[in-house]
């Protein structure tokens, strides 16, 4: 009699569990731990400045538990509370440090561990962290609307014009869109890597950017296929263009989530001045994103509510990003989200790529290449206004 199939599938798993159990139960035979002293690795994930105190949230990146025993600020021992217990691997703790800090000055905080090791953390410019109350969330929402929703909505007003241009020039416009998106993908990747390098490496660091990209790319590919299949069943005309517009909106939305995240974080750490320049810069930068959404649906006749929905999908995540960035910033999450934004955009580019080629032609026409380069140049130049 042949054993059942499920048993064959389960057998290796059971053996793995038994082996691990025996290995642990016999106290790791033949191995006697690490040769050196404990490895202490703490990363400061979040710094909150309140009048008279710093609050540091630290995460243990290393293999061993770490115990914070004393704290120094600018070469002086100071009183603190929190982290009374050892911080276990991947665990985190919040340490409240009493210090009469002065607005605008630089501080160096050092956490002294039980072995005498120092974990140094620089606060380059001390600025009080805004209280995350209702008015603060309202402010972040307003900011998200300014830099995300309004510019994209304005950009989508190009639709009537796009409808009336000849097909050849529409192709150039699509190339311009791809150029814009390519720039955003590069930008999001670099930003994600930058953030990943600063924070905790425990959850993968830079790898999170690429994992995020892969997840978003595959998820959008799956969603795209599903939409296409559904549309085919319903025999809708112009379905592919419509779902393409949705995918672009989602991709740009994920990018704007990252953008909102960066804005929210920069604002709370005092690294960002809210002003005309920032809003105008983002408006110029993101208006082009509106164009990218409407270009593929130029030949169909979308209803106004549908256009509004597309605009919101692309723009509103900036609001959400600003909230997350301001209230619960975490470098690992941020790295993942920036990666996801990049992956989503790459997926959109892959979807758009076939439309750039003339029927029965190999390679790209010079004007299409010009459109691609123009998109990159446009983003580069408008990006200069908002470099943070």
């Amino acid at each position, binding site marked *: 009699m042949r054993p059942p199939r499920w048993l064959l599938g389960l057998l290796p798993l059971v053996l793995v569990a038994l082996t691990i159990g025996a290995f642990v139960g016999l106290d790791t035979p033949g191995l006697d731990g690490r040769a050196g002293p404990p490895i202490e690795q703490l990363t400061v994930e979040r710094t909150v400045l309140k009048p008279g105190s710093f609050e540091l949230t630290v995460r243990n990146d290393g293999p061993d538990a770490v115990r914070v*025993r004393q704290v*120094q600020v600018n070469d*002086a021992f100071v009183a603190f509370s929190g982290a009374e217990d050892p911080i276990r691997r991947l665990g985190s703790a919040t340490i409240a440090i009493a210090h009469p800090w002065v607005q605008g000055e630089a501080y160096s905080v050092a956490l*002294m561990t*039980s*072995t005498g090791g*120092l974990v140094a953390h620089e606060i380059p410019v001390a600025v009080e962290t805004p209280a995350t109350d209702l008015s603060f969330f309202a402010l972040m929402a307003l900011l998200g609307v300014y830099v995300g929703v309004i510019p994209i909505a304005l950009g989508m007003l190009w639709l009537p014009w796009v409808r009336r241009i000849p097909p050849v020039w529409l192709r150039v416009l699509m190339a311009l869109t791809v150029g814009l998106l390519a720039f955003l993908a590069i930008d999001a990747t670099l930003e994600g890597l930058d953030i990943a390098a600063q924070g905790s490496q425990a959850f993968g660091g830079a790898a999170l950017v690429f994992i995020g990209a892969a997840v978003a790319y595959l998820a959008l590919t799956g969603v795209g296929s599903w939409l296409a299949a559904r549309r085919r069943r319903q025999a809708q005309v112009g379905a592919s263009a419509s779902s393409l517009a949705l995918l672009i909106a989602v991709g740009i939305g994920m990018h704007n989530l990252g953008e909102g995240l960066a804005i929210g974080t920069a604002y709370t750490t005092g690294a960002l001045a809210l002003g005309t320049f920032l809003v105008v810069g983002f408006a110029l930068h993101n208006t082009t994103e509106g164009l990218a959404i409407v270009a593929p649906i130029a030949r169909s006749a979308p209803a106004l509510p549908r256009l509004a929905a597309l605009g919101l999908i692309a723009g509103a995540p900036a609001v959400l990003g600003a909230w997350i960035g301001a209230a619960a910033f975490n470098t690992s999450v941020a790295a993942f989200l920036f990666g996801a934004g990049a992956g989503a955009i790459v997926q959109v580019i892959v979807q758009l790529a076939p439309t750039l080629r003339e029927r029965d032609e190999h390679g790209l026409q010079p004007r299409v290449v010009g459109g691609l380069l123009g998109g990159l140049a446009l983003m580069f130049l408008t990006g200069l206004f908002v470099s943070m």
Partner: protein
Amino acid sequence: MARLTRRGLILRGAPVIAGAAFVGARSSSAAEHHGHAVAVADAAAAEPHAGHADMHGGFQGAVDHAANGFDPHVILRDFDAGQTTRLASGRTLRTFELVALEHDVEVAPGVTFPAWTYNGRIPGPTIRAREGELVRVAFANGSNHPHTIHFHGIHPATVDGIGGQGGAIVAPGGRAVYEFDAAPFGMHLYHCHVRPLAEHIAKGLFGAFIVDPKDGREDADEMVMVMHGVDTNFDRANEIYAVNGIGFAYLERPIQVRRGELVRLYLGNMTEYDPINSYHLHGNFFEYFPTGTSRVAAELTDTVMQCQGQRGILEWRFASTGRFMFHAHQSEFTELGWQGFFEVIE
């Protein structure tokens, strides 16, 4: 030569560490009255421990001095007179026993430092002899690293404690004897002189060596303070500054002195990684005798600076009761542990 065991060495070192009997021995010279204090703010002095961390900085928690095997408050007035025997010539021979030991010290509450020590304490025993006596220091190395003792003083090259011509470097388990005349009178220092020098000294291998003048000094409440740093993370910079081993020890528990009584402080600087250290006394001035080799004070001041290896004797009397701070006048050192209080009582 029998290899020394760590356990045996600790037991041998014990009588030196347990020299607490000196603490109670205070001379009771007549109190001098320097006038009435009119301070209005001395109400705060009534508060014994609370609020230091907020007001003056300090560690979080408390160091377990018993577990360390030494207490800065004991070291403060612990002078090791050694064992004396009269030689045929009529001279006094004073012998001391020092043992190099590796010893984990809680240098701040909850922070362990793998120190190298003489007799299990930082600083090592305060060796005290009288001018003209013959000093014999029997040294045993109970650690896993080679060490010596290099005394500041006037002595033959063969007992200089530097290896080579100055006596051999003492290997782990080895022994050496340093014999020399107690000269000149003053406040001196001793330390290990094995490469790398900074590391051997910074880890705790140093102490005070006092030579009293032939005719002695005026009775006083005598104390010794050796200034030093602790490089807890081995980056060749100090994370903690202290006198007598543990930072903030005299801030958390003030040193009690009597009003009007002469205070004589033997002060030395064994700080590594920073070129200078200093001592500043609040609410008073002291007479300063550099290296203690002259009976005439060099200056009347409230702040004195010492380079690495410099030392001197400070003398003063408190005219009024209350708490008076003393600390390094480098604020960084102060807030990293080198500060304390005198509590003047009637």
